[in-house]
C-alpha cells in the first residue's frame, strides 16, 4: 500500500515570497491533515479536511496561509507571503475517517527554510 506522498521534500525561499506544498493521501482516506512542526517541538495541526470540505482551520494563519483539497483527494497548502517564523517542517497526514481511534498516517514532510 502506497503511503502519503508529499512534495517537494525541501524548499528554501526568501521572506515575502510564496510557496506551495502538495500532498497525495493514501487512497480511500477521507480525512486529510496539515501540520506544522517547528524544530524541537511536536506537530501542530493547521487544518483538517473531510473529503473536500474543511472541518477545522482554527489554527491556520489565514492572512497568509491557504489550503484546498479539490475533488477530495490531493491537497495543496500555500503560504503567501512567507515570514521567517514559517521555517518548519510541514507534514501531511491522512486517515480513513476523522473519528476517535483512527490512526493517522504521515508523509515524509516538506522542510521549509525562509531566509
Amino acid at each position, binding site marked *: 500500500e502506497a503511503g502519503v506522498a508529499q512534495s517537494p521534500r525541501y524548499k528554501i525561499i526568501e521572506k515575502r515570497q510564496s510557496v506551495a506544498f502538495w500532498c497525495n493521501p493514501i487512497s480511500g482516506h477521507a480525512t486529510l491533515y496539515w501540520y506544522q512542526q517547528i524544530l524541537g517541538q511536536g506537530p501542530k495541526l493547521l487544518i483538517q479536511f473531510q473529503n473536500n470540505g474543511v472541518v477545522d482551520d482554527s489554527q491556520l494563519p489565514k492572512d497568509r496561509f491557504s489550503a484546498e483539497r479539490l475533488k477530495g483527494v490531493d491537497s495543496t497548502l500555500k503560504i503567501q507571503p512567507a515570514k521567517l517564523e514559517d521555517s518548519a517542517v510541514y507534514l501531511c497526514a491522512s486517515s480513513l475517517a476523522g473519528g476517535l*481511534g483512527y490512526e493517522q*498516517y504521515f508523509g515524509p514532510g516538506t522542510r521549509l527554510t525562509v531566509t
Partner: protein
Amino acid sequence: SQQGEEDPQALSIQEGENATMNCSYKTSINNLQWYRQNSGRGLVHLILIRSNEREKHSGRLRVTLDTSKKSSSLLITASRAADTASYFCASPYSGAGSYQLTFGKGTKLSVIP
C-alpha cells in the same frame, strides 16, 4: 496548547538496554497514542492505548496508562541503534466538530551501538 508533555526531553542509552519515556497530559482522554519520528522523516504510529486499558504490548514496546495520574509510559526493551528517533505521545481532543491530535514536544532517544 499542547496536551501531552514527554519526559525526559532527551535520553541516551547503550544498545541492548531498555528505554523508558513518560508522558503527562492535562485533560481526560479517550485514548493515547505514541508515535516515532526518525531524523528527517514523518511520524510513524506505534501504538494506541484506550482509556479503559492499563497496559498494552506490541513487539518490544510496552505502554502503560494511569488515568488517575494522567500519565503514560513507553518502554522499549532490548533497544537497537535503529530505535534512535524522537518519540511523541498524542491524545485526541474534540475540536471544531472533529477530533484532533495534540502532540507533546517529544523525547529524543539516542541508542549507542
